[in-house]
């Protein structure tokens, strides 16, 4: 316990800026010694230092500037920035992860359960990485802005108030619009690629190893691509309007319904065309997937248009679209009543 004072003074001064350390050290040392009798016992020293309190607090009171990364004035803006940046980045990286994972799985000829695993792990790690980056850079940006910024703030006047009161009912969070926009773009792109036969689909793992084949017949579907693109554009427009208006009003409702119907139309149009399915896929179905009545399905697919599978898919798609339309209408009606 012989260098207690020295260690105490060190613990205080190490938290202070370089240029102040030496002077504070001398002064604090002198002050502490002044408080003690000529030949202080360890107990005397201990009591005196305990009375001085924690070095962290003492160092804090020596400092002039307050210590925070992002000051209270900017903090609210920082949080709301995070609220839209993180979902946006999350959505983008999720989609990139899916597409990349897919391509990777195909390239490496991974089959069956493995490619799901690859897809999921690639997506999650990509998304986490992206989110961490987004959080970091947003925080750094605000910390810098805080230190550079607002020393001479303009005088606040009434003009700076928000233009409208928020509508409590029927509000659409900004993140929803952004996510829908990104998904619209992504699924349109994936849809087009699928239709053009660019994305092979790996189906099953069997004794013969993995089977890679194309789902759709590229040639017959060239004409369907514009349909998908139009549906995608309507979807994007609906998302953008949601971001602008931020609540369920009549225009938003109309576009949303149009989006659902267009999507439904595209799906029905494609699956009811003859020659939709690629021959390799049909052949595959003939050869049999374990436990499935394959011949029947294969015939179904080959005939196109009126088969059971087609009808079932069509009905499911119609029901989903109908539900989405109804939800949109209900939300709009509720919003207008508030």
């Amino acid at each position, binding site marked *: 316990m012989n260098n207690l004072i020295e260690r105490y003074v060190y613990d205080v001064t190490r938290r202070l800026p370089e240029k102040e350390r030496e002077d*504070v050290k*001398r*002064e*604090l040392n*002198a*002050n502490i*010694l*002044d*408080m003690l009798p000529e030949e202080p016992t360890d107990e005397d020293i201990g009591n005196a230092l305990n*009375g*001085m*309190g924690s070095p962290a*607090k*003492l160092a804090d*009171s*020596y400092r*002039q500037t307050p210590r925070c990364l992002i000051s209270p004035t900017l903090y609210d803006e920082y949080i709301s920035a995070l609220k839209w940046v993180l979902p946006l980045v999350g959505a983008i990286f999720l989609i990139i992860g899916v597409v990349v994972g897919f391509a990777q799985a195909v390239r490496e000829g991974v089959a069956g359960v493995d490619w799901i695993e690859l897809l999921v792990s690639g997506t999650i790690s990509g998304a986490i990485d992206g989110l961490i980056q987004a959080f970091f850079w947003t925080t750094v940006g605000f910390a810098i802005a805080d230190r550079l910024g607002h020393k001479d703030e303009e005088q606040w006047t009434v003009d700076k108030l928000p233009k409208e009161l928020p509508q409590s009912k029927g509000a659409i969070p900004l993140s929803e619009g952004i996510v829908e926009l990104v998904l619209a773009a992504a699924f349109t792109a994936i849809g087009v690629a699928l239709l053009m036969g660019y994305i092979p689909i790996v189906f099953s793992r069997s004794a013969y190893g993995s089977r890679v084949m194309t789902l759709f017949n590229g040639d017959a579907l060239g004409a369907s691509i514009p349909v998908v693109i139009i549906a995608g554009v309507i979807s994007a427009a609906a998302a953008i309007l949601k971001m602008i208006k931020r609540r369920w009003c009549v225009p938003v409702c109309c576009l949303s319904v149009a989006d659902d119907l267009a999507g439904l139309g595209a799906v029905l149009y494609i699956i009811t065309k003859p020659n939709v399915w690629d021959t390799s896929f049909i052949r595959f179905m003939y050869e049999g997937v374990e436990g499935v009545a394959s011949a029947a399905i294969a015939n179904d697919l080959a005939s196109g248009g009126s088969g059971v599978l087609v009808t079932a898919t069509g009905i499911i798609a119609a029901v989903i679209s109908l539900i989405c339309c109804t939800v949109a209408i209900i939300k709009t009606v509720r919003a207008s009543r508030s």
Partner: protein
Amino acid sequence: MADNERLQSYVTELRRGSLVLAVLGSLKAPRYGYALLQTLQARGMEIEANTLYPLMRRLEEQGLLKSSWDTTESRPRKYYEISEEGDGLYRALLDEWTRLGERIAAICREDD
């Protein structure tokens, strides 16, 4: 928070404002940290070492005090003294303090 603790925290608030005045007012002649601490405490100011020492440094950084190291004694000591700028501020602050006391007395008397 117990009642006494609550009272204490408000009292501390009250004292915090007057501390600078007390320190400036006691440094017409040069003094070192511990001596000033004892003087103030003897006069009834309840103040701690870990409040006073940083305060004196801060006042010096703001130009209200000036300091010099005395290395003649067995132990070197830092002496503080009020500066010219500090003196001007001190008088204005003391003025304000007196006026404040009168105003508060008037307000509180009124509400009785």
